[in-house]
């Protein structure tokens, strides 16, 4: 009888081992970031000597209201209906808002950047100095994901392609296309390093 119980325990133990030890608790981060690392031509990690600023054109727009009369011009960030009643002519200036994701970081070896929920192509401006910048394009599929009732929803992405300009960047490569809220390296940027 004891032998049989031991065998049952052994079989069940093997099944448990097969199930693995994955945890199902909520992760600390409910946002997914695309992790980008910087390397040289040999694949060794590099630190940027210049400061790095990463900015994006957001999906939000800034509207400026310009009211003109024969003698006067009024510029406002909100509409002024009384000026139209007085005979002022209204024209709108709509500008796409820019967001700064990383501001003048020194010695950057990589960045973690958020991708858009709604767009399937994001454009990132990597500015190294006043005169030197690169643009990185990330194409992705957006995957709204339900993790659990308690943990809520999170946006996952699958990167389909990456490309860039080549002022300081030599090339870009996808390492892991799946962008989730468990941070893993997704993209490698190869920089041209001058000895």
């Amino acid at each position, binding site marked *: 009888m004891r032998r049989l119980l031991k065998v049952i325990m052994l079989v*069940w133990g093997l099944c448990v081992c097969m199930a*693995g030890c994955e945890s199902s608790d909520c992760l600390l981060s409910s946002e997914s970031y695309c992790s980008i690392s910087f390397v040289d031509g040999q694949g060794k990690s590099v630190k940027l000597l210049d400061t790095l600023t990463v900015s994006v054109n957001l999906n939000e727009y800034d509207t400026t209201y310009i009211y003109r009369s024969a003698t006067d011009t009024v510029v406002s960030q909100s509409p002024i209906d009384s000026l139209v009643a007085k005979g002022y002519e209204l024209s709108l200036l709509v500008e796409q808002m820019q967001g700064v994701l990383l501001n003048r970081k020194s010695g950057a070896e990589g960045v973690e950047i958020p991708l858009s929920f709604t767009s399937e192509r994001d454009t990132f401006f990597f500015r190294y100095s006043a005169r030197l910048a690169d643009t990185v394009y990330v194409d992705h599929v957006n995957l709204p994901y339900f993790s659990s009732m308690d943990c809520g929803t999170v946006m996952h992405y699958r990167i389909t392609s990456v490309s860039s300009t080549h002022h300081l960047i030599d090339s870009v490569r996808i390492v892991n296309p799946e962008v989730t809220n468990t941070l893993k390296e997704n993209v490698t940027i190869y920089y041209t390093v001058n000895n």
Partner: protein
Amino acid sequence: MLRSIILLTISLLLAVAPASAQTRKTRQPVEPQRSRIAEWLDLTDSIPTFQGVSVITDLVGPGWYALGGDFFSTEAALEVNLLNRFFPIVEVGYGRTDAINEDTDLHYKTTAPYFRVGLNYNVQYKKKSPGYIYAGLRVGYTSFTYDVDGPPMIDPVWGGEVPFHFTDIKGSALWTELLVGVRAQIYKNFHMGWSFRYKVRLNVKDAPNASPWYIPGFGASDNTTFGATYDLVYRIPWK
């Protein structure tokens, strides 16, 4: 004959010692090997192998739901008594949930049948009493579809929002359960008892947009979970 078939089947399923014995002495006649298997399993009693059939239903699933739980399940089982010691069992059930989380405002809905097969082992088989303590093992499987919807997802950086509404997501799950329980006779052929179960997921099919939160027959979709049954048992009269 039936007894011989059962002995051989159990020895094939649990062949650790017998297998090593067979590899050492492959030209042994069949009958002595059966004797060794019987000896190894301590099957020396001369009682009939077939001791009857029981039908079982669980009261915990409906009771838990009636007390305000998110999950409803009901199940029935058919159990065969062999030698008053081995109890092969098939459990068939139905589980459903239609829950809303007040914190995240998420809604999850699923309804599906589930199946388990396994074996109970009477650890007090020598006592010949109608009540006993047992240990058991199950393997469960279910195939189901589920709906998930919630508030729109608002992009905190880029701006904009996307709806969150998915229906008929296909999922399946395979799991195992280790359990202990007791049975006691309450009146003639009616018995009652409980089992306490430790469940481990073996394989769960995820979808690109969701992992199942509730798995019928398993429960909340953690990697491991605990469960319990309170069994109403009817032993079908035999002989």
